[in-house]
């Protein structure tokens, strides 16, 4: 009979398990790859459970779509078709612009940019805790989702992949505590780091020199300096500028442009074009730092010897400069 037996836990077993937990926590904080594998291994199980449990909800929406009246569906399809045409039209202009941009960049010894590969993913579970605000999506390793990839929605940056398993992936939202992202503020040219706070939909940025004249409503876009997020994606809009009279700095509060609380579908940038090659060895940091400086040296070397030649074909140069404002005009409209 189990009733009258003592089931005091063995002290050695307790000690071993406690030490194991503490060891795991330490390894996790240190970012060991072994713990990451364990995490993604068990994650396959839990993400799988989330996915299976979420399935009826998907069937439910499908069923409601099926039961929707025909006229409503037709109306919706028409609206979507119109939107699609509009977007396609805008994209034509975009490709044209990109061609020009690539040509200009080649002239400046830079690489040309490519449109990033995106992957549509559906949200299957949300888990907010004090430390981080995350959600799970239904795409995993097999779809090419890897930790660190940027996640966006129709409006702007949502977050970054934190963990990827066989059955799903976890996305860390940008308003999580301690989350930091390199951004440029509107037209001011200031590049700094925006941080997540614990509060929902609030980001902060501190110690911006006053001379940059930041206004409420300015758009923060990714700077591309971090090598993870491609340049130019909208992140947040400035909602408040706190002016500290005693100092020459301002602190700002911003609200993410992506609707972080009501996400149902997101896009994962599986192949960020501006990102540096995957980190292979200890040389990674050195190479990342050296590339721009090398380019700078090369470009100055190019300019210095060519300076005398540059004067000679100066008659052919003006048409090129004249054509630029002419080209810009249609885009400005």
């Amino acid at each position, binding site marked *: 009979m*189990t009733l009258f037996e003592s089931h005091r*836990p063995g002290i050695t077993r307790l000690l071993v398990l406690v030490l194991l*937990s503490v060891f795991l*926590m330490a390894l996790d904080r240190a970012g060991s790859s072994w713990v990451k594998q364990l995490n993604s291994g*068990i994650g396959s199980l*839990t993400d799988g459970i989330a996915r299976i449990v979420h399935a009826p909800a998907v069937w439910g929406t499908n069923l409601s779509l099926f039961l929707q009246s025909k006229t409503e569906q037709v109306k919706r399809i028409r609206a979507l078709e119109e939107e699609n045409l509009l977007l396609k039209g805008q994209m034509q202009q975009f490709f044209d612009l990109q061609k020009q941009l690539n040509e200009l960049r080649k002239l400046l010894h830079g690489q040309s940019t490519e449109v990033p590969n995106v992957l549509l993913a559906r949200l299957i579970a949300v*888990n907010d*805790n*004090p430390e981080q605000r995350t959600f799970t999506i239904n795409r995993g390793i097999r779809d090419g989702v890897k930790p660190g990839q940027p996640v966006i929605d129709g409006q702007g940056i949502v977050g970054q992949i934190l963990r990827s398993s066989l059955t799903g992936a976890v996305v860390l939202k940008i308003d999580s505590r301690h989350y930091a992202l390199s951004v440029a503020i509107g037209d001011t040219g200031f590049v700094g780091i925006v941080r997540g706070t614990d509060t929902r939909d609030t980001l902060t940025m501190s110690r911006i020199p006053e001379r940059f004249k930041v206004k409420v409503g300015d758009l923060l876009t990714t700077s591309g300096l971090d090598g993870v997020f491609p340049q130019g994606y909208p992140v947040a809009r400035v909602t408040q500028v706190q002016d500290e009279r005693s100092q020459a700095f301002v602190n700002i509060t911003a609200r993410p442009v992506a609707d972080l609380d009501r996400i149902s579908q997101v896009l994962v940038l599986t192949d960020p074009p501006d990102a540096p090659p995957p980190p292979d060895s200890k040389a990674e940091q050195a190479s990342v730092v050296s590339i721009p400086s090398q380019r700078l040296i090369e470009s100055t070397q190019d300019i210095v010897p060519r300076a005398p030649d540059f004067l000679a074909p100066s008659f052919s140069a003006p048409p090129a400069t004249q054509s630029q404002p002419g080209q810009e005009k249609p885009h400005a409209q």
Partner: protein
Amino acid sequence: MRSNWVMIPLSLLVALILTIEPSVPLYQHYAPQWLLLTVLYWCIREPNSVGLGVAWLSGLVLDVATVGLLGANALLFTLSAAVVLGLRQMLFFTGPVQQALFIAGLSTVYLLLSLWMQGGIADLTMLLHNMIRVISNLVAWPFILMVFNLFRRRY
């Protein structure tokens, strides 16, 4: 006795699903800690099958499912299970209300420690959120006892 081999994993799975799924923020903040309560129930009821090992493993799975620090919940699950196993003979014979009060007390310590590990202990609103969670644990315990008793009588 044989049905336990089905009942235990099944109940743990259901508890895990209840922890993960209704992803409404309100539920996520205030819902009872289903997995912890289920593990502690089995520690009191069937200490031969559910002990420290199962508690540790459940905690680890919960860590992964909630994307927290790996090992934090595992540690707290193990310690809670150790306390319950140590006081098992007393807990087995007390009424459901006293049991619920004890479990709620234990979960207060659990939640405070977990908040401390996550670094939110100084935040008063977070503290209040967690205290509401203790109350929902208190309410959930008799409910869990009732559901399990129902199943035990049936099978």
